[in-house]
């Protein structure tokens, strides 16, 4: 990428301190995000995949500064926004929005749809009430909800419709960047397809840039231009979507893809599945996070931090053994 990324993270870290228990020694902090570098170009969708606790949602929130990083930097169009004060951040927030997973918990149940969608406009003082009303109507059209929805409350809608309301809210301030955090994960497959198609249409029509966070690899495959795979607070592999799914390099990415259930009964899994549980992200911060489950791990993997190694244009892998050429896959 030669153009300036729309959003960029450099060495982003978020450590959560654990509550001290009486007389117990202090426990090490949870390293939820532990040195994440990523760049998202304008108009692009970066998929961020990983299992529970890998830090993908925390990463999304850090990029919008909904939570404050422990270390590292966030750049918006090349401008460092990590230390921006509240007033400065407020104008940035118009350009960056988030859609949450739970369409039940993320909408105020006491507000009508018209108020819910207009709320961001009111907070940012956009237009007068007449112009806001017409904007709300346009947003409703954009997400294919009927005008009759305006006077109704969230509980009157199905999960898919609520997610459309959440998307309309996120679009109200005409953002350029949207973090979709498991935005379709709570939906049934037929409804999920409707919302995925809607997100793709909106991106095409409004030139949006997405960070699409999901644990569902098939959904990420469908919507993303590039995909980053996270494991215990680190990105282990990033590549164009086609390359990542056709030629996964990192042993964890390979394990993740191999664990997927078949698309068709004729393609059932015949190989052994990866053993062991996900460890907790509170390790000492040394070495490769995946080393203790990795079938290819050597002693160096336990002590040395892997850095990104480029295996093909745009395809980067954080694996010592791939970097030193001792592991070819």
């Amino acid at each position, binding site marked *: 990428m030669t153009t300036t990324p729309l959003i960029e993270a450099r060495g982003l870290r978020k450590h959560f301190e654990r509550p001290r228990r009486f007389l117990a020694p202090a426990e090490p902090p949870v390293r939820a995000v532990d040195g994440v570098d990523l760049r998202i170009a304008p108009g692009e969708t970066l998929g961020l995949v990983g299992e529970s606790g890998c830090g993908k949602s925390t990463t999304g929130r850090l990029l919008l500064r909904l939570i404050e990083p422990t270390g590292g930097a966030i750049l918006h169009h090349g401008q460092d926004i990590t230390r921006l004060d509240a007033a400065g951040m407020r104008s940035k927030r118009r350009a960056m929005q988030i859609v949450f997973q739970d369409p039940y918990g993320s909408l105020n149940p006491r507000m009508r749809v018209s108020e819910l969608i207009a709320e961001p406009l009111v907070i940012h003082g956009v237009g007068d009430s007449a112009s806001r009303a017409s904007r709300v109507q346009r947003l409703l059209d954009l997400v294919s909800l009927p005008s009759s929805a305006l006077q109704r409350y969230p509980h009157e809608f199905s999960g898919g419709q609520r997610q459309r309301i959440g998307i309309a809210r996120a679009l109200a301030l005409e953002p350029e960047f949207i973090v979709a955090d498991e935005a379709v994960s709570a939906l049934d497959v037929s409804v999920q397809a409707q919302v995925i198609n809607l997100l793709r249409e909106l991106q095409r029509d409004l030139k949006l840039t997405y960070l699409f966070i999901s644990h569902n*690899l098939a959904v990420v495959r469908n919507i993303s231009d590039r995909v980053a795979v996270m494991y215990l607070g680190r990105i282990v592999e990033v590549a164009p979507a086609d390359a990542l799914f056709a030629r996964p390099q990192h042993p964890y990415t390979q394990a993740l893809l191999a664990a997927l*259930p078949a698309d068709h009964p004729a393609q059932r899994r015949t190989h052994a599945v990866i053993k062991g549980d996900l460890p907790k992200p509170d390790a000492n911060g040394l070495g490769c996070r995946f080393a203790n489950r990795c079938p290819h791990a050597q002693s160096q993997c336990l002590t040395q931090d892997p850095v990104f190694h480029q295996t093909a244009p745009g395809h980067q892998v954080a694996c010592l053994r791939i970097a030193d050429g001792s592991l070819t896959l």
Partner: protein
Amino acid sequence: MNTASALPMLQVQQLSTGLGAEGPEILSAVDITLNSGEVLGVVGESGSGKSLLALSIMGLLPPAISVRGGQVFLQSQNLLQLQAPALRALRGKAMAMIFQEPMTSLNPVMRVGQQISEVLRWHRSLQGEAARQESIALLQRVEMPDPQRQIDAYPHELSGGMRQRVMIAIALAGRPRLLIADEPTTALDVTIQAQILELIRKIQRDDGMSVLLITHDLGVIAEMCDRVAVMYAGRVVEQGTVMDIFDRPAHPYTRGLLASRPKIAAGANWLCTIEGTVPAVGQMGGGCSFAPRCKLASPDCAQRPALREVGPSHLAACVTPFERMSDPRAQTP
């Protein structure tokens, strides 16, 4: 598939349930057959009634929901005619169930070993050290690491995957012929899901157990099942072999469900969608419940279509299955 025993392991015939005595119908004349030694998948979206079907079979319906009609046969035994004590003797022994959320279905204040021993005491009259040894053996069977130690763990000390292994050990304790697994891997991460599915499959093969696997995930169906029943709005709309369902889906809903699923191999394709949403309980008309969302609906659909044979042991409840698969409206996304 086992053809030696002619009697199916489980046969549900025209089962209907509803809210109270007068309230809306929830399950509507459901027919499914699970042959001995096979894995039958029940797939459907939220509100399709698939979990309620499992609870009806186990006799665990919440008090507000009552059976309105139909039969449930476990081999030759009609479960709906059994008195509570007779049903209790079967539950956990002849048939066992595992649930989606192993945290809420395990007792949080009992050690894992005690929860397994409870079944052993009740159904196999094992006590004390014998029960403890058998519990350890069961934990070994479900591939629990370090079972000698984990037998004394409390559920909160275990990960989600390990809890689900404990659930499976409890289910296996009574040596059931029928295992009902209701979304057993939905709450688990994909690598852990793979481990648990592998385990269920291994036990099923080793014991020749019959499994009713309830899921919303067509991937899990493709991975695990011999035959599949597709449910929509409280009804079975299609039933057939897993190959029939994936290669020759007869019901427009099944076809829509398969087409709306994103697939790794398909890349960034535009997904087909089923417009509209599942009707709410009590808002289903007398006709085909899928008709309001069906691109192929015709006036004939005002009559409720019965499940009928559309191929060898392949059933579909549609007035015009297959016939209009070439209809361009069936192809448009």
